[in-house]
C-alpha cells in the first residue's frame, strides 16, 4: 500500500497532488457554504469543454519536440481573423461557425509553417523565442485590427478607424455548440454539442498520432538523433507539429468564442498560450511528453479549479481578486515546476 502510494506520488508529482486536493477542498467548501452544486458543475463542464481544444494544441507541439507552444497566440490570431472574415461575409449560424473554421485553417497553416521554420532555427531556446514571437505578433496584430478595412457596423467602431475590442457573436454563432442537443439533469445542464466537438477533436488528434506521419513526428520529438539515423527529416516533422498546433489553436479560439459569446481582440490573446501550457502540465504532461489524457485531466483540474474558486472566494472574502491570484500562482507555478524537471531528468 505504502509502496503503491509512493509510486503514485512519484508519478503524479507534488504540485499536481496539491492542485487536485485544493480543487477537492474548494468543491466541498462550495457545497457547504450553499453554492448551488448543479449550476456550478454546469459552469465547470462548459469551461472545460470550451478550453479543451486550445489545450489540445499543446500535444502536437510537445510531441514533435518544439516543447510547450508558448507561441499559441499565433494560431489564435489566425482563428480570430477567420471568425472576422466569416462575419464580414454576413454568414449566420452553422455556416458562420464552419465558415470561420474553414477560413482559419489555411491561415493558421501558413502562419504555423513560418513559425515552425523559425523554431527550427532556434533549437534549444524555443520556449523563450516562442513567447516573444507570440507577444510581438499580438502587438503587431493590434495595429492590424486598427487598420483592417472592415465595414460591418457590428465590428467597426462607430467613430474612427478599426475594429472594436470585443465583438458580440449574438446572432452569428454564439452558443451554437453549447445549445446543440443539450439536455438537463435537474439543475445540471449538459452542453452535449460542445462536449462532442471537444471529444471529436481529441479523437482526430488520436488518429493523427497513430498515422504514419504522427508516429514519425513522435519519433522526431522523442529522439532527434535516432530519427536522423532512421532517415526522417527532423525539421520537416517539427514544422508539421507546429502547423498542427497552430491549427488547433485557431479552431480552439473559435470554439472558445462561441461559448464565451464574444470575440476578444487586441491584447486579449497575449496570455492565452500560458494558460493552455499550464493546463496540459497540470494534467501530467512535461515539456517532452504529452497525451490526450493529460489534456483532459489537466483542463478539468485547471479550469475547474478556477470556476469553483471564484464563487467560493467571493463568498469568503470581499476582494474579488482571489480567483485571479489563484490563476497566477497555479499557472506560473506549474510551469516553473515543469522547467525544473527538464534539467533534473537529464
Amino acid at each position, binding site marked *: 500500500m505504502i509502496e503503491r502510494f509512493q509510486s503514485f506520488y512519484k508519478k503524479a508529482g507534488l504540485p499536481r497532488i496539491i492542485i487536485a486536493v485544493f480543487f477537492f477542498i474548494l468543491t466541498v467548501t462550495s457545497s457547504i457554504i450553499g453554492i448551488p452544486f448543479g449550476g456550478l458543475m454546469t459552469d465547470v463542464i462548459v469551461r472545460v469543454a470550451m478550453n479543451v481544444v486550445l489545450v489540445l494544441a499543446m500535444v502536437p507541439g510537445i510531441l514533435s519536440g518544439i516543447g510547450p507552444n*508558448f507561441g499559441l497566440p499565433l494560431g489564435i490570431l489566425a482563428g480570430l481573423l477567420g471568425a472576422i472574415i466569416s462575419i464580414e461575409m454576413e454568414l449566420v449560424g452553422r455556416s458562420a461557425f464552419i465558415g470561420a473554421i474553414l477560413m482559419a485553417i489555411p491561415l493558421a497553416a501558413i502562419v504555423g509553417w513560418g513559425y515552425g521554420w523559425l523554431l527550427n532555427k532556434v533549437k*534549444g*531556446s524555443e*520556449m523563450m523565442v516562442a513567447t516573444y514571437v507570440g507577444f510581438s505578433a499580438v502587438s503587431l496584430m493590434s*495595429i492590424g485590427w486598427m487598420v483592417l478595412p472592415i465595414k460591418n457596423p457590428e465590428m467597426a467602431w462607430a467613430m474612427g*478607424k478599426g475594429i472594436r475590442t470585443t465583438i458580440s457573436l449574438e446572432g452569428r454563432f454564439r452558443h451554437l455548440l453549447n445549445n446543440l442537443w443539450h439536455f438537463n439533469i435537474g439543475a445540471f445542464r449538459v452542453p452535449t454539442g460542445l462536449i462532442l466537438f471537444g471529444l471529436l477533436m481529441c479523437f482526430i488528434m488520436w488518429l493523427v498520432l497513430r498515422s504514419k506521419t504522427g508516429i514519425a513526428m513522435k519519433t522526431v520529438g522523442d529522439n532527434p538523433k535516432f530519427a536522423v539515423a532512421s532517415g526522417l527529416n527532423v525539421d520537416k516533422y517539427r514544422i508539421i507539429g507546429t502547423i498542427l498546433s497552430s491549427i488547433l489553436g485557431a479552431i480552439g479560439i473559435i470554439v472558445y468564442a462561441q461559448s464565451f459569446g464574444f470575440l476578444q481582440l487586441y491584447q486579449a490573446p497575449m496570455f492565452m498560450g500560458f494558460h493552455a501550457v499550464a493546463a496540459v502540465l497540470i494534467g501530467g504532461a512535461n515539456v517532452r511528453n504529452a497525451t490526450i489524457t493529460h489534456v483532459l485531466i489537466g483542463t478539468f483540474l485547471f479550469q475547474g479549479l478556477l470556476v469553483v474558486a471564484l464563487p467560493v472566494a467571493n463568498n469568503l472574502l470581499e476582494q474579488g481578486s482571489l480567483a485571479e491570484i489563484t490563476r497566477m*500562482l497555479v499557472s506560473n507555478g506549474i510551469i516553473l515546476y515543469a522547467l*525544473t524537471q527538464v534539467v533534473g531528468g537529464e
Partner: protein
Amino acid sequence: MEPRPNIEENTQNKRIEMLEKGKKFLINNMVTILFVIIGYIGFVLSGLSLPFFLNDLINRVARNGFLVLALIIPVLAGMGLNFAVVLGAMAGQMAIIMTIHWGVFNWQGILLCVLLATPIAILFGFLTGKLLNKTKGQEMITSLILGWFANGVYQFIFLILVGSVIPMKNEELVLSTGVGLRVTVDLDKKLRYAIDSLFRFSFIKSVLIVGIVFISVALYMYIKNNKQGQLDSAKGKVMALSASGIVLGVWSIMTMLNSRNMLNNLNIPVVTFVIIGLLCFATAFLTKTKLGQDFRTVGQDQHLANVSGIDSNKIRVLAIVISTVLAAWGHIIYLQNMGTLSTYGSHENIGMFAIAALLIGGATVTKATIGQALLGTVLFHTIFIVSPLAGRNLLGDAQLGEYFRAFVVYGVIGVSLGMHAWKKQMQSKK
C-alpha cells in the same frame, strides 16, 4: 618595380580595408543604427519641440538608467537577461510601503528604503539564483515566469493578507474595507523627488562643462602623446574629442545667449546622475576584480570553471543576488521620480522595458557593456516618448503608436533571443 602603382595599390587596399571595417561596424551595430533612425523619424513626425523632448528624456534616463545597468552582471555570468529583476523591484516597493507607513520622508526616507530593501532583495535574489541553478539552459524563460509567479505571491500578500493577517492600520495606505493596500499611493511631499531635487543644475551649463571637459581631455592626450612621440596613434581620438567638445561648447553658448530659448530653463537632477555614474564605475571596477573574472569564466564554460576550482553554482547565485539588489535600489530611484506608486502595477513591466532598452543599445544575451546600457536607455525612451504622438500625426490615432512601441519592446527581445539561438545552433554545427 615602379613605385607609383604600388602606392596606388596600397591606397586601394586601404580603401577596401576601410570599407570592410565600415561594413562590419554596420552589421555589428545594425539594431542600434536601426533604432537611431526610427527614433529620429519618430521625433520629426511627433512634432515635439526640442526642449520639451529633452526634458522628458532627461527625466526618463535618470529614472531608468540604474535599472538597466542592473542587468549587466548576470549577462556576464552567462545567465542571459535577468527577467527576475521584477523581484528586486518588488523588494524596493515593499520597502517604500513600509517607509510610507512609518512616516519617514525625504532623503531620510530614501535611506530607510534602501536599508529595508537590501535584505529583502538579497533573500529574493538568493532564491531566484537557486531556482535558476535547477533550470540551467532555460534561465531566461524561468526568470520570466518566476516574475509572474512572484507577482501572484505579491498580490496575495498585499491584497489579502495585509489587514487580515498582517496587522496594518493606515487610512492612506489601506483600502476602506481594512483589508488590502490601495491601488495607487501618492508619494508627493513624501518621497517624490527626494533624490532628484537634492541638487538640480542647469542643463545647458552642464553641456558647456561637458564640452570643456572633452576639450581639456583632448588637450591632455595631445600633450602627453606629443611628448612621447606617439601622436599618430591617438590622432583620431584627440580629433574626435576636441571636435565634439567644440560643437557642444559652441552650441551651449549660442543657446545661452538666446534668452528666449526654452532650453535655458531645463534642469538636470545631478545627484541621480551621479548615482548612476557611480554604479557604472562600480560595475566597471567589479569586472576587473577576481570576482569579475570568475563571473566571466563561469559565463564562458561552467564545466571549465568547476574544474579550475570555482564553485560555479555559487557564483551564479551571487550574480543574481547583485542584480536583484541593484534592481531594488533602481526601483526606489524610479519611484521617487514617478511620484506615484501603483501598488500592483509599477513593478510589472520593469524587467521587460529594461531588457528591451539594453538590447536596443546593442547588447546581446551573452555580451552587455555599460555603454550599451546607457545608449540603449536613451534610444529606448526616445522611441517611448515620440511614438504615441508620431502615431497620432501619421495615422490619426495615438493608440496606434502605443501598440507600435509594445511591438518594438517584444519584437526586439524576440529578435535578439532568436538571433542568439540561431548563432549558437550554427556554432554547434561547425
